[in-house]
């Protein structure tokens, strides 16, 4: 009898606890109210960047709003958290997201606040480079502001280049010659991996071989079976077969491989600079950066730009304050703080980065002759990109005949574009 009562009590308590947990969504969080000086609920999957967001709070804290930081380190868990939060009353004031189809989904559902006015003002003030806006434009309107940008370029180990008497290549031919020489002398020329960044060599080679085709794939105007794409896959396969890449089974971080000279070159976004700094490699001394040369010189210089958005949840508690904060985010003051705290490039052309290698790269790729391309991941339809992780992951690992994979990608793309009408 007594035992049953205890059991029943425990069950009731656990039930009550569960109900309490379900209903606790309404309290806590945000606070502050509208207007200046609000504490903005801020969510991001870039948990490791917390010190930089703290640094921003020190600058903005005096007269503006500050961020109340919640960081995730697992981006899948983060994405589903953000999506779920839109089903509750607790819409995030500010959150980081991804451009491309992921942002399109939120825009379609009317979940993010429009920022067209902010962009118009920022362009008038010269705070954003040309072309960046395209990443944030849906049906002619802008949503979110750029949190950060990264240019994709080739990082190289200076000591390895010096030891093997190799000049920094300026053409694709020179880069291949350098790779051949390094290979012959027992050094793995290039880094690549079969997860997360399995698509990047496809991106680099195709953007450099046939930029129109690279862009055409994003709009359904080009095919994965086009000869330009096949050329790229053949070239890539040749490079894998020739042993130009590290074994993809090595799970050591790229920054460590590059720093130790286990690979001579790594094609990465400029976020790699921060990771190299973390392992004690010095820019300009241990490593340098050069733009990826185009596989077909006639294509002209192409550089891939990746950008991550900072978005305002529509209908959030501090929506206006969050929009004001977004406008401030693009200013010289904010971007100087951000750039020096991250040691990374800023999208704001008025802000120079202290790292000379990075600055040289930025000067080169924003100098006028270079065409800026979007990163493959964000630029392509999600189902096609998702399939590409499987196909390219397998390609990096086993270098099979590329045609069946390309056929599957094209089938997936056909299905997607047919659904779009």
């Amino acid at each position, binding site marked *: 009898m007594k035992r049953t009562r205890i059991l029943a009590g425990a069950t009731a308590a656990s039930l009550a606890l*569960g109900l309490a947990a379900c209903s606790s969504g309404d309290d806590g969080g945000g606070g502050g109210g509208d207007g200046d000086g609000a504490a903005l609920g801020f969510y991001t999957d870039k948990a490791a960047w917390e010190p930089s967001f703290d640094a921003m709070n020190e600058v903005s804290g005096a007269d503006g709003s500050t961020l109340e930081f919640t960081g995730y380190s697992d981006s899948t868990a983060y994405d589903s958290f953000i999506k779920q939060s839109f089903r509750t009353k607790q819409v995030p004031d500010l959150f980081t997201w991804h451009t491309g189809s992921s942002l399109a989904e*939120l825009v*379609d559902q009317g979940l993010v606040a429009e920022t067209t006015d902010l962009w118009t003002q920022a362009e008038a003030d010269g705070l954003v480079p040309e072309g960046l806006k395209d990443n944030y434009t849906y049906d002619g309107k802008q949503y979110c502001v750029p949190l950060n940008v990264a240019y994709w370029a080739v990082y190289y180990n200076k000591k390895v280049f010096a030891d093997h008497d190799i000049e920094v290549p300026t053409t694709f031919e020179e880069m291949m010659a350098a790779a051949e020489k390094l290979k012959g002398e027992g050094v793995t020329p290039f880094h690549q991996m079969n997860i997360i960044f399995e698509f990047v060599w496809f991106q680099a080679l195709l953007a450099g071989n046939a930029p129109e085709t690279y862009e055409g794939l994003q709009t359904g105007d080009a095919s994965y079976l086009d000869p330009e794409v096949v050329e790229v896959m053949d070239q890539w396969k040749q490079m894998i077969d020739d042993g130009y890449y590290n074994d993809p*089974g*090595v799970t050591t971080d790229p920054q460590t491989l590059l720093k130790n000279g286990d690979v001579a070159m790594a094609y990465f976004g400029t976020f790699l600079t921060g990771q190299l700094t973390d392992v004690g490699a010095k820019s300009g001394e241990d490593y340098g950066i050069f733009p990826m040369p185009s596989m077909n010189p006639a294509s002209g210089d192409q550089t891939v730009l990746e950008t991550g958005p900072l978005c305002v949840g529509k209908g959030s508690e501090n929506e206006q304050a969050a929009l004001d904060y977004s406008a401030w985010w693009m200013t010289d003051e904010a971007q100087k703080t951000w750039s020096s705290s991250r040691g990374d490039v800023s999208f704001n052309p008025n802000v120079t980065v202290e790292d000379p290698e990075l600055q040289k790269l930025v000067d080169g790729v924003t100098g006028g002759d270079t065409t800026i391309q979007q990163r493959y991941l964000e630029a392509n339809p999600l*189902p096609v990109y*998702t399939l590409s992780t499987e196909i390219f992951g*397998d390609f990096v690992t*086993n270098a099979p005949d590329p045609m069946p994979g390309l056929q599957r990608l094209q089938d997936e793309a056909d299905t997607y574009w047919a659904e779009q009408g």
Partner: protein
Amino acid sequence: MPHRTTVTTPPGAAEPAAPPVVPEGETTMTATAAPPRPPTSAERPARRPRATYRWSARGFALPAVLVVALLLYVPFVWTSYLSLTEYNGLGDPELVGLAKYQEMLTDAGFLNSLLNTVFWVVGTLVLPVGLGLVIAVLAYGLKASFWYRLPFLLPYAISGVAVGVIWTFVLQTGGALDEALGLFGVTDPPRWLLDAPLNTFVMIAAATWQGAGVNALLFTIGLQSIPKEPLEAARLDGASGWTMFRTMTWPMLTPLTTVVVGLSIVGSLKQFDIIWAMTKGGPGVSSETLALTMYKDTFVENDYGLGAAVAVFLTVVTVAASVLYLRRQLSGARES
């Protein structure tokens, strides 16, 4: 309450002329309140309990039933509904009938996951369960057998993700295993985590490292519960070693084997953490299992409908496998 029925004869009173009158419906209470006495089949309480008693029993069970319904059945019904929809986690799900199941069954990746899951089920039955049995039998009865079992049991205390990380260090290209093989002159070792189905096999080995110990522990408990007399009798009849195990120990272990195998089937069908930590299902989808496919379809590819279809499939398979296996085992036990 019981005191009412137990007081039948005051101490020191004369022998009553007639048996005490027990009110209708109080017989069971008498039975429970009576001093412990092995019940015989003749006096099994056969009468139905009073209606109020049954209602109060239902009242006590209700909170638990509610919790189960709320936490298990409602999500399952919701997932089943989602599997009939097109849904990306935002807005409202859109009914598409059985399209997601069709998509699932015609997807090469899904069929590959299914095959890998079969590898896992079979592999887990053979290795962690088989090895657990071997360890238990070999160590049983030895002096300090605890110390023989302990090293096998320790990995069980580590989380699956940590096991995955440890084994990644061992199995990655140029990792600990490759270096060790290098000492023996093997210059071109297999690509453990890159080539399918080898990557699934080595991950089953990692799971074995973690799981064999606890199976050994369970089998040891089973061995301890076997009565000594039949074994002694068999020994007197000249049985020993393999014959002893095959004809005596193994049949008497059946109840525990049923539990261990049942748990192992369910566990392997939903295997996730070690694979997620070691290969994330890759390269490509070559080492995905159904649990990984379900997770990736839902949360990585944002195709909640497809993920839900895989989840429903996985649930049906798991429940069917458990029910079929347990029913067969338990009915077998009843017959014997």
